């Protein structure tokens, strides 16, 4: 049987302080390869923390996290960084594109740190940009692009390294309804290609694209089967 992409086993994340914040409380969560999951919930419920833990940007204070079957609690900081660069793609609400680089260079930046062969970077970037329908924008700088186009550049950057897991944090938060739709269509295409996707959002429309939805309230995660698709 194939190993799940993500398995969280009673994962907690507590931020120490004068009043400790329990961002995640004993979360159990399994994500099979090819799943498209949305995480919804009010702000401050721990959605972003969940995403950071999944993306190896943050470490659980308790519990076990297996990514592609690797127990990431047992590996050191450098290996976690390597795993992140190799197997995880991020899409952020505010795009995080490098202002002075062309669209292609922005996508290629994701291949700098994971021993991707230098000669194939450009070809891979072009391929990823064509997948998000931006083959005609490759030599422009991000400031010439619309919001939706920028977010698609960010998606191209996230998928260019063929990650195991794509994490999107409010990917349409800075976009209007029309452009949001183009981004969501890209996610649908990626889902068809078999990419494993986690989208954090508070937008019902966005959430409804996912086959599986999970809710977070006060650091507690609960499954729901209510949604457009089926499991």
């Amino acid at each position, binding site marked *: 049987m194939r190993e799940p992409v993500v398995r969280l086993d009673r994962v907690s994340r507590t931020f120490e302080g004068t009043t400790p914040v329990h961002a995640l409380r004993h979360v159990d969560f399994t994500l099979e390869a090819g799943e498209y999951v949305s995480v919804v919930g009010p702000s401050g419920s721990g959605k972003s923390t969940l995403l950071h833990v999944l993306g190896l940007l943050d470490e659980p204070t308790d519990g076990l996290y297996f990514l*592609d079957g*690797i127990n990431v609690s047992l590996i050191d900081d450098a290996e976690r960084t*390597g*795993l992140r660069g190799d197997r995880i793609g*991020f899409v952020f609400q505010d795009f*995080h594109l490098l202002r002075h680089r062309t669209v292609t260079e922005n996508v290629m930046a*994701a291949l700098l*740190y994971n021993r991707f062969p*230098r000669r194939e970077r450009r070809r891979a970037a072009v391929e990823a940009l064509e997948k998000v329908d931006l083959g005609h924008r490759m030599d422009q700088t991000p400031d010439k692009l619309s919001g939706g186009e920028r977010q698609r550049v960010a998606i191209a950057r996230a998928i260019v390294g063929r990650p195991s897991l794509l994490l999107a944090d409010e990917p349409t938060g800075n976009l209007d309804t029309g452009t949001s739709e183009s981004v969501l269509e890209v996610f649908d295409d990626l889902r068809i290609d078999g990419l494993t996707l986690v989208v954090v959002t508070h937008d019902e429309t966005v959430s409804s694209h996912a086959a599986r939805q999970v809710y977070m309230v006060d650091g507690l995660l609960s499954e729901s089967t209510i949604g457009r698709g089926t499991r």
Partner: protein
Amino acid sequence: MMNSPASIVRPHLAFRDLVAESVTSLLARPGRSLLTILGTVLGIGAIVATLGISKTAGNQIVTRFDALAATSVTVTQRNEFGFFGPSQQTVNLIPWDAEDRMKRLNGVVAAGIKSNVSADGRLTRSVPINDPLAQTEFAINLIAVSPGFFDIAQAELRSGRFFDEGHSSRADPVAVIGRSAAQRLNIDRVDHQPAIFVGDTTLIVIGIIEEVGREPSLLDAVVLPNGTARKLFQLNGIDEVQIRTEIGAAQLIGSQAATALYPNEPNRLRVAVPPDPRAVKGAVEEDVNALFLVLGGVSLLIGAIGIANVTLVSVLERVGEIGLRRSVGAARRHIASQFLVESAAMGFIGGIVGASSGVLVVVAVSAARTWTPVLDPWIPLGAPALGMVVGLLAGLYPALKASRMEPVEALRAGL
């Protein structure tokens, strides 16, 4: 299991990619990068120009060194102080044959002795003219010299001749007078052997000095042979011995002269030698260097602070970029090394531009003064290296700060 832990790829950044990323970042803000390196350019430029100019000038001192002064040695009698004040200088330590003794030393070109003769208030006049309105008697200095002294003083005659050893040994009542003295005494030719009177003593003028290279006091004096001065004016001691040496022999002669003149107690004589040209050159280089190297160092420090400042600002501006790079797999050391390479590159470019402008300054100054520019070859080569080190040091703190940022916070903070 599809992926085993062994297949974890450790984060890696090829050096070529590191340099490319850093240079691209610098070129993204060319104006700011240029302004940032300005301090380093000034600092390195000042240092290179300083070292070059002092070297060039130091070299120049050797060639332009006053050959006349560099070959002169003077021996005088040391002023002696007893318990009861200055002792009477009754003892003459310098022998009357000092000129011969000096000329026997190897390296001596010319030597002569000179003494001021006390006139005891006697005035000097020429053949009396009964002009009640004009002054006819003057207090003119009497100077006794050995014949060699005219050579030392580079004296040129208007007319007549110098006296020689014969005049001195016979104590002939002859004199050579300077052109100012001649004018005062109304003497302009010597072919009729004009006589002058110092008090009651008659002297025949045999020559008039038109010009001297040194010892301008001769121009307004009555110059007597030593022997004449001793016999007629009771001269009993020599004031000074002057020696001209071969070029480069001044130090040697200076060490020998006192012993040759007064072997018993040579250190009772005072020997004045010119400063050693090598020492002068070194001293000039040191003076110039010390001052301007401090200035160059200060501007370099300011340059370093400038780079540190701008790199720090740039780190704070690029927090989002740092977060993004961490999210695509950059390790802390990759973030640090990118900022370090950026600041080192700025220092390096500053070093190159600074060294170039420094060399230009040296060449320009040399051209303006028709000097030969001299520069140690390691300076233009070492300057960019120095600039790079300065840049590296300046980037240390900002780079460390950048690498310590937590990716989650960096992503949240910046765009």
